[in-house]
């Protein structure tokens, strides 16, 4: 099974994740796009694991998932906090730290 | 290894300065002043002893060389030749004079008299270091270090908007210093290529032959810093503002001692390290020098503030000094070296006496003064003598150096001399117009209302030695010139310039004139 299609797919998913982060205004959706980007990179890792024939890729993917979990927990807690104080989960409302 | 004269002269004032700075608050002002005066006198004695032991054509003497930073090839190397010694002497002579003259100038400044005199002594030590450094790196360190005391002296003690003037001074000179830093680094790169490994020693560097283009860029790097320091036409505006705000004592140390680093640097580093570039840049620098002669004089005529006027006269005099240096012949260079010493004395006298007058009248503006000669004849008399020295009247020391510079300029090109010589007429104008508006005439009515007192003993004792030295050197410059001339010949040989023979060969032995 050739490797290229998987990598290309991962690239496409990653790009879509990026655009999602840039364009969507709901904090949680932005967060989901970040998760999408992470998954895209996991796909690439696993593909390369297979290409190179050792499991390091998969372990790396595994670690990515662990870290993603920790990140989601903290991220959502922050969003909850912002929502509780600001009654809106839009990313653009938290824009006090500026010139 | 003989007694490290220069290090002692360098260390004594700095150590005492630190001691004064950290002295307990309870120390009374007069004791601080006496300690400061005492130290400066000790250093003066050291200087005089050194001068006596100095053998005129012995080249670099009192040398000490210790490795400092091996990787850079930087050494802690000190040594003085004729020019270096004369400027060290100028420093050690002027510092006690300044301390005595600005006895209570430091009282109401921000750090009180303790800070004032500590900074002055630190400045003296660093100035001696600058003039004695024979290692480019060490020279650069001292070159930048001298800015700090002046910044605090101007910023802490002085006129109303002294902070702005101090910042402007610092930024201007730091800009010059940074450009020089680039050249110093380039110098390291060049000297690293040499077989003997990188070395900043002047003796090693002078044998280093650098490519023409690189040499020219480095020459420009050094020259920019020195043109800012010895203020020439485009980069001079900081001097007038600083002197206007600073106390007279600080202005003296700034103009008479520190600005000499610029011209000293040109002779010691630009000519020696980059001979080809110096010859290449001579026309441009000569034009610049002549412009600043005339420009400084015109600005002096037009200014209505005493320290500002004196500062502009110094711009004009520095034009003469740089002109003398870059016409690259022995008359011009000897004249320039002598000029550095004489200008130091005449400007110091003018600044100090002007300072006494300002402290008495409360204002520095010339138009609000008048008829002082009737009320304070001694002050007016001394002011006139130092004014005459500034317009280089024969019989006073600046005349000889100015004459030699103009002769040197004439040898180089008659046109340069023709324009430079208008400087003496403008000099007569700005001094005599100032003297006439301040001293003569019945004076405004308030003369009667606030009669000002004549100079007191302290002030006279502080200024008279300077004026005596000016008159003495006016008639007997020989000892000083003998000290300077070997250095001049050495620099000229280094630059590869030689004096043109006179168009009419002197016939027979009677050429030298004088007794048969």
């Amino acid at each position: 099974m050739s490797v290229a299609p998987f990598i290309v797919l991962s690239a496409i998913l990653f790009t879509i994740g990026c655009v999602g982060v840039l364009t969507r205004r709901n904090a949680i959706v932005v967060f989901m796009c970040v998760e999408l980007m992470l998954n895209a990179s996991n796909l690439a890792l696993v593909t390369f694991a297979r290409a190179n024939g050792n499991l390091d890729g998969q372990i790396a993917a595994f670690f990515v998932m662990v870290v993603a979990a920790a990140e989601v927990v903290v991220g959502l807690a922050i969003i909850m906090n912002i929502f509780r104080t600001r009654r809106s989960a839009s990313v653009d409302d938290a824009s006090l730290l500026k010139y | 290894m003989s007694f490290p004269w220069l290090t002692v002269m360098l260390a004594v004032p700095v150590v005492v300065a630190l001691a004064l700075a950290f002295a307990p608050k309870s120390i009374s002002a007069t004791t601080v002043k006496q300690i400061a005066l005492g130290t400066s006198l000790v250093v003066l004695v050291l200087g005089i002893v050194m001068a006596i032991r100095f053998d005129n054509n012995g080249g670099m003497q009192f040398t000490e060389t210790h490795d400092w930073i091996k990787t850079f090839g930087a050494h802690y190397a000190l040594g003085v030749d004729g020019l270096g010694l004369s400027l060290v002497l100028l420093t050690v002579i002027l510092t006690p004079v300044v301390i005595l003259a600005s006895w209570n100038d430091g009282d109401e400044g921000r750090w009180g008299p303790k800070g004032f005199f500590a900074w002055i002594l630190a400045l003296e030590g660093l100035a001696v270091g600058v003039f004695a450094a024979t290692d480019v790196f060490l020279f650069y360190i001292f070159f930048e270090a001298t800015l700090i005391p002046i910044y605090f002296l101007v910023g802490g003690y002085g006129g109303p908007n002294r902070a702005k003037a101090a910042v402007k001074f610092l930024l201007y000179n730091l800009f010059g210093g940074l450009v020089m830093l680039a050249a110093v680094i380039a110098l390291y790169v060049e000297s690293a290529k040499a077989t003997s490994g990188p070395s900043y020693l002047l003796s090693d560097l002078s044998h280093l032959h650098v490519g023409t283009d690189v040499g020219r860029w480095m020459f420009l790097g050094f020259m920019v810093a020195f043109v800012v320091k010895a203020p020439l036409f485009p980069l001079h505006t900081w001097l007038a503002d600083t002197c206007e705000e600073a106390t007279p004592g600080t202005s003296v140390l700034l103009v008479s001692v520190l600005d000499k680093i610029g011209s000293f640097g040109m002779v010691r580093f630009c000519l020696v390290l980059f001979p080809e570039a110096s010859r290449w840049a001579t026309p441009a620098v000569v034009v610049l020098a002549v412009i600043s002669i005339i420009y400084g004089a015109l600005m002096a005529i037009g200014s209505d503030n005493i320290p500002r006027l004196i500062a502009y006269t110094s711009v004009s005099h520095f034009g003469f000094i740089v002109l003398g240096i870059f016409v690259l012949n022995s008359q011009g260079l000897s004249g320039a070296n002598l000029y550095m010493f004489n200008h130091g004395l005449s400007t110091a006298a003018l600044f100090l006496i002007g300072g006494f007058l300002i402290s008495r009248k409360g204002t520095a503006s010339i138009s609000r003064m008048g008829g002082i000669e009737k009320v304070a004849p001694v002050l007016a008399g001394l002011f006139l003598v130092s004014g005459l020295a500034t317009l280089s009247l024969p019989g006073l020391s600046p005349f000889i150096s100015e004459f030699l510079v103009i002769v040197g300029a004439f040898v180089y090109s008659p046109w340069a001399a023709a324009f430079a010589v208008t400087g003496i007429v403008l000099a007569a104008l700005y001094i005599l117009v100032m003297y006439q508006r301040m001293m003569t005439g019945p004076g405004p009515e308030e003369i009667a209302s606030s009669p000002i007192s004549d100079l007191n003993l302290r002030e006279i004792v502080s200024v008279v030695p300077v004026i005596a030295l000016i008159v003495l050197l006016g008639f007997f410059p020989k000892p000083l010139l003998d000290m300077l001339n070997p250095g001049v010949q050495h620099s000229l040989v280094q630059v590869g310039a030689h004096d043109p023979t006179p168009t009419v060969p002197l016939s027979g032995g009677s050429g030298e004139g004088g007794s048969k």
Partner: protein
Amino acid sequence: MIGFWILAPVMVACALGLLFARKAVHAALLLAVVMISLAVLYLIQDAPFLFAVQIIVYTGAILMLFLFALMFVGVDASDSVVETIRGQRAISTLVGLGFGLTLVVGLAQVSFGTAFGLGAANKQGNVPAIAKILFTRYVFAFEVTSALLITAAVGAMVLAHRELLTPKRTQADLAAQRLRDYAEKGTHLGPLPPPGVFARHNSVDTPALLPDGTAAEASISRVLAARGTVKSAPEISGDIAELTEGGEE
């Protein structure tokens, strides 16, 4: 490989859907589809362990966490697609496309050569092999991530925790407050009456009957009343009449 060719378009479509979904919940579900198809792709690439972890941990836990968060935030929050920052959408699509194109074009020229395949590595099965590597070479990383997870949990708790701004009210205070309300505002003292309990009707929307036969307001929750799904006495009485036909008229 066929699996891949089927799943790839689906994933891309869902991912694009994630961009344009108006409601956040729809976006979450689309993401779930992408994740599950990813898990299948892992399976295709001889990574059964990751297949399982992806399904259980990633989709099962993390995505569910997203849904919880969505419930808190409220499904309708800030879904308007109107762009506030001037030119943001245009430039980001442009830059995104550029980025994607560069990657894809770049990757297309790169020849990956034939894959080794994990046959040798997975000889004793994928999970033992992973475990061997994980607990030998990467054990330090493993411990660090565990520390990370703990701190994340504590962090979340700290963030979610709200300090009591006013002193904690004891049971005595509550009782006194109830009596005060009854005295001043006449609010019903004690628990509200339970809903009607009748032979064939005891659901929460059956009102209890007052002695005069009318329904008791307080026995039905306000929400149901608001929603208007409360049974009325006559409806129930119709059954009763029918049951007690023979009874006194």
